[in-house]
């Protein structure tokens, strides 16, 4: 190597040669790019998360009004025989007068001066108050005639006023609330009748109609999402990993496996709504599975998640050096054993990453749910059993958020963001398990 002389790398170690300087500059740049990439991503995450928390925090507090309601027998049980079916005949509309008088009584009792009509007084309460009363009466018919203390939800405007969302300046045209009502609210707050507390119902409750944003909760939809995620996890992980193992480790390289391979990567590019079309056509119309059921949602999302898991699992499997397989085969392990004992554990981080990303996508997806009837107003009760959770109509967290975000009352907007916080918490919980598992499997060789 006559032409290559010592000078090629000559000089002191402490002094960097010009070329080294240049290369180190490139190195620094490269590293800086990496840091910048992470910083940008984390910054975006930070901005998004702070926005979400800032906008959604309000949903976790709710305003309540405590009132004493006299359960008038002549209104609720005209015949006085406590016959349940007769009591049931009184609809929520029939309970409105009781509430009206309870509010009026309260205002009088406190001695607050207000020129409000009783209809406007009732406007401070949620429209769900009557239903709450009726429920109580039907469950406790013997209390008819008593005066019972109730904690009613305040209407969304009152709630918004206490949370600073509704201002006096901005309600000029608002027919749902008036300055006089706000004055009354101020007085009631002073009297301790109106108070803002932590809102557990938002986390465990069911959806409410457009007129009652204050009553809407995420709980049932959360169970719907949970059921779907269980289906997705139970199906897509084994199927996805199984398919990947077959394709990567066993499949003969022929046209058939080529077709499967192309198919899978193609399925990844299929818009999610198409999976909804598929779900409607195949699972509901053809297989007669129930509509709006998390089971069907889970199946559709499974199909949607599979390509993600398969692609990442295959990448992870093919990254395992073949010397590991050779070592196992060389001492008489079968290929199946080599894969399951040695290759799969080494590929586990990649598989888990695919699962994390696939499930994140499935958890946040609404479009396919639209077509199988899981988006809309599905205010069912929390299911009692797992089977019911899978089969009876339910919504899902993203669908609920999507619905709320569309609704007219701004109070729903706050709830939509509050729901997003819950969704992210759900996601983080789900991911934590996978992330911990992944860290245990990570190693370099």
């Amino acid at each position, binding site marked *: 190597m006559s032409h290559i002389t010592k000078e090629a790398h000559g000089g002191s170690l402490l002094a960097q040669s010009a070329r080294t300087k240049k290369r180190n500059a490139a190195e620094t740049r490269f590293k800086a790019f990496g840091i910048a990439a992470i910083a940008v991503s984390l910054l975006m995450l930070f901005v998004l998360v702070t926005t979400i928390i800032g906008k959604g925090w309000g949903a976790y507090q709710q305003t309540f009004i405590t009132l004493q309601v006299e359960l008038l027998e002549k209104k609720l049980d005209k015949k006085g025989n406590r016959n349940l079916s007769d009591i049931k005949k009184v609809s929520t509309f029939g309970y409105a007068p009781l509430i009206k008088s309870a509010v009026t009584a309260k205002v009088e009792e406190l001695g607050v001066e207000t020129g409000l009509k009783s209809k406007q007084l009732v406007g401070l309460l949620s429209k769900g108050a009557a239903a709450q009363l*009726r429920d109580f009466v039907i469950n406790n018919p013997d209390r008819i005639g008593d005066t019972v203390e109730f904690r009613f939800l305040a209407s969304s405007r009152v709630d918004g006023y206490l949370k600073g969302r509704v201002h006096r300046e*901005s309600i000029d045209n608002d027919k749902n609330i008036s300055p006089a009502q706000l004055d009354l609210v101020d007085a009631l707050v002073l009297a301790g009748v109106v108070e803002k507390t932590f809102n557990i119902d938002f986390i465990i409750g069911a959806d409410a109609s457009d007129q009652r944003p204050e009553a809407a909760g995420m709980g049932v939809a959360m169970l719907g999402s949970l059921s779907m995620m269980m289906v997705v996890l139970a199906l897509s992980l084994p199927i996805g990993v199984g398919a990947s193992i077959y394709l990567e480790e066993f499949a003969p390289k022929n046209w058939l496996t080529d077709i499967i391979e192309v198919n899978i990567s193609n399925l990844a590019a299929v818009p999610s709504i198409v999976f909804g079309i598929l779900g409607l056509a195949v699972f509901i119309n053809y297989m007669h599975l*129930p509509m709006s059921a998390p089971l069907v949602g889970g199946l559709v999302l499974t199909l949607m998640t599979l390509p993600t898991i398969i692609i990442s699992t295959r990448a992870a499997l093919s990254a395992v050096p073949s010397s590991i397989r050779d070592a196992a085969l060389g001492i008489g392990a079968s290929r199946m054993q080599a894969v399951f004992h040695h290759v799969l554990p080494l590929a586990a981080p990649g598989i888990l990453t695919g699962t994390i990303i696939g499930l994140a996508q499935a958890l946040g997806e609404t479009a396919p749910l639209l077509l199988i*009837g899981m*988006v809309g107003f599905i205010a069912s009760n929390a299911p009692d059993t797992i089977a019911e959770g899978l089969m009876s109509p339910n919504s899902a967290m993203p669908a609920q958020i999507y619905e709320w975000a569309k609704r*007219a009352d*701004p109070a729903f907007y706050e709830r939509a963001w509050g729901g997003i916080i819950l969704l992210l918490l759900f996601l983080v919980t789900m991911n934590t398990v996978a992330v911990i598992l992944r860290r245990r499997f990570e190693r370099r060789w």
Partner: protein
Amino acid sequence: ASARDQVQVAGSSTVLPYASIVAEAFGENFDFPTPVVESGGSSAGLKRFCEGVGENTIDVANASRKIKDKEIAKCAEQGVTDIIEVRIGYDGIVFASDIHGNSFEFTPTDWFLALSNEVLVDGQMVANSAKTWADVNANFPAQSIQAFIPGTKHGTREVFEDKVILAGCEATGAFDFLLEAAEGDSAKAKKKAAEKACISLRTDGRSVDIDGDYTETLARIESNQDGIGVFGLAFYENNTDKLQVATMSGIVPSTESIATGEYPVSRPLFFYVKKAHIGVIPGLKEYTEFFVADEVAGPDGPLAEYGLVSDPELEKTQESVSEETILGGAS
């Protein structure tokens, strides 16, 4: 397979809020489970409605427009023949802008001149060059034109085109001019061509189609103070703190002015019931009747309170519901 026991509703997202209010009250007052009301648009709802008769199909389709004859035919093809049509009321469509901005008093002509692709100038159709509202109407402030109108998927778009743009087109005389110039074999074809030319809107970004919902339109106006958007009356009434409404031909939109027909831009809302499911799906009949009951859909009911323009002919609807009158006459 165990049997379905709740009413299953799907369709228009404009009707959804009303349907959900009814469903909620229905669930509270009856022993039947709360009906499931899905959104997804009138088209998807009716399509699923027409998928066939049976438990795995929906019972009720909400629609923000009348069912089309073609759709009825398609339904019949798949065995869905006896359909009960229920008109629940009217949806008012309003124009609103940022509350802190300028206020407007529109006429259809203004909108046509602002958004149409071509306008009539000196007996010639020329490309629309209006940049500010002042260019359209000297009474308006020189606020840059930025309209957020419903995308072509929305039923509202059709109403907007028919009752505003087309009306404006006719008022400016552009329609007659286009009719003259139109090619076509029949008068009908000519009219169609002229209408089409009238309603073709400019694509230079002054008019923005909104495919999402009113919340998106609102968000756009919040991020662009010049914007003027198209909203449903109910939505506007819930957001009066952010929006100011414009008058149309001098009329302020409200449930009253729409009910009397003074305010021109509105449309009826419907739902359709499969008669075959009545008596089989528990609660279907009750739900239908409850929906149009006075205490629900009447002028003092919760629906009107929320923003539905109550149907003056509600009584007739109630009658046809209780008698299960099907579309196309014979019961």
